[in-house]
């Protein structure tokens, strides 16, 4: 579709306005987080604060009544461990389904994909009971265990590894490498792009998870950032500036991670990385 550069410039300008309107709730969030409480709800909106209170708000969030840094650490811990386990299990299964031969392989793979039809939300009650049986209720281990297996991410791994030429594997075999070494020294290094994609997606989903922690955690010491946001809303319900600073603290690191790894995130989502 050819088009004049003038037309393209005009559309770009209109879209630029749209994009700023679109993202304005998040700009408002940052702006409110930098203000004194009395200025937050002033109308018309003053996007750039007249008086800055960013540092005080920041201190209230990070050194105030809610142990925000602990929640932050918990989220980070859960996200990192779940991501590493997901990477391990999904790359092993992906490698096996893509590159190894065993009886009923394709049937097993299709069966695995069909299990994705089972909504996580429909198994909350039995999983809650099972986790209590295992004495894992109110532990991080419960969330890690349930976060270690993700079908769509295994699918992404397998699809990518299908694209690795069989010759690399055969060459490895010729050199006398066992299958473990082929997995570890040939396939995994070649799979770096998909490892990045799967890793960042799993990290984002775990960081953002609210339902899991809400149901499986009770002890405030174990709370994640999403539950911490809840505590914040309850304790600081009348001070929006502080709550917005908490929201900024929850979102911004993720945003930076996303902007750095946008390619991996977007390609992963476009390639079938559907949230479970």
């Amino acid at each position, binding site marked *: 579709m050819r088009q004049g550069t003038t037309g393209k410039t005009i559309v770009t300008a209109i879209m630029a306005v749209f994009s700023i309107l679109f993202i304005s709730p998040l700009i408002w969030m940052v702006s409110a987080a930098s203000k004194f409480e009395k200025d937050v709800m002033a109308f*018309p909106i003053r996007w750039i604060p007249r008086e800055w209170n960013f540092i005080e708000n920041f201190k209230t969030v990070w050194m105030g009544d809610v142990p925000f840094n602990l929640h932050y650490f918990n989220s980070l811990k859960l996200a990192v461990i779940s991501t590493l386990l997901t990477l391990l*299990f999904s790359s092993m*299964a992906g490698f096996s389904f893509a590159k190894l031969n065993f009886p009923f392989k394709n049937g097993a793979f299709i069966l695995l994909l069909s299990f994705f039809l089972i909504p996580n939300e429909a198994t909350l009650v*039995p999983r809650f009971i099972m986790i209590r049986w295992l004495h894992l209720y109110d532990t991080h281990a419960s969330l890690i265990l349930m976060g*270690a*297996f993700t079908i769509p991410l295994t699918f992404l791994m397998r699809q990518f590894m299908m694209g690795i030429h069989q010759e690399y594997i055969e060459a490895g075999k010729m050199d006398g490498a066992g299958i473990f070494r082929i997995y570890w020294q040939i396939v995994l290094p070649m799979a770096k792009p998909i490892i990045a994609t799967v890793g960042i997606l799993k990290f984002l989903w775990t960081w953002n998870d609210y339902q899991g922690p809400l149901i499986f955690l009770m002890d405030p010491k174990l709370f994640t950032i999403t539950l911490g946001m809840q505590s914040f809303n309850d304790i600081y319900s009348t001070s*929006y500036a502080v709550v917005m600073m908490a929201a900024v603290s929850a979102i911004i690191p993720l945003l930076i991670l996303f902007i750095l790894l946008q390619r991996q995130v977007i390609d992963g989502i*476009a390639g079938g990385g559907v949230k479970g």
Partner: protein
Amino acid sequence: MASVSRDLGAGETRRRPFWTNRRKEAAIGIAFAAPEFLGIVLLGVFPLFFSLYLSFTEWNLVGGLKAIRFVGLDNYVALFQDKTFYLSLKNNLVYTIITVPVSMFIGFVFAVLIHSKVYLRDYFKVVFFIPYIATTVAVATVFSALFHPSSGPVNNLLMSLGIADPPRWLGSTDFALWAIIIVAVWQGIGYNIVIYLAGLTTIPEDLYEAAEIDGASWLQRFYRITLPMLGPTTFFLSITAIVASFKVFDLVAFLTEGGPNNSTNVLVYYIFEEGFQNFRMGYASALSWMLFLIIAVVTAVTWKAQKKQF
């Protein structure tokens, strides 16, 4: 083993070792796939059937397994007479019917524009995608402030536009669901843009060139090439978006807790209430199976509709 077989007479077949390379590979292959497969079976498939069993029982967790009482179809009979169930189903359907097509349509339009009509494609992609990856509960706190009935920017804006009595949004039985829908659409657009952009890049450029040579206008090319070629993308998006819409939870749990007066209660939130606030494990399991069946039926119907079309 090798030396034994060498001693055998020439007429006999050589006995192969049991662990041939092929068998070894098969065993390792199974071992590699097993953790993921078993994990899913134990944490997905087994619980699904466990909840089917529970749905025929009554149990409030107290007294251990012995206290589970078999009640037959009672939970399902109760469910079909339960006004809150119908209300949450209705709310969920409204949510689905609005959020899915609206975010798909806006996503589609923006994707077409971003694909071929603008500079700075990567900038637009990233900006529109940010709400999709931003933590939903953090986003929810932002919107609960924006939607504040008396002092929030949204109502201030409406009042400055001359609407004297703007809605009370999250506090109103008539508007709370709409507030949630607005946030959900806002969060979902980026996902639709990204998937449509991926679809657009797969359309071969020569199709457009051939059409142009034949004198097709921009509009004709759009209707005859772009739209039909994006059919599979639209199908994929409809399935994933409809399924996701029946799982909506975070926004409701965080913003309204299903209220006011159940006006924003939805299926998963109702499961949560019954299971984890009232501890009615049997009833919550029956609700879970309704959710599973609804999602299965929706998927099957969409699948069939798609097969007829293409």
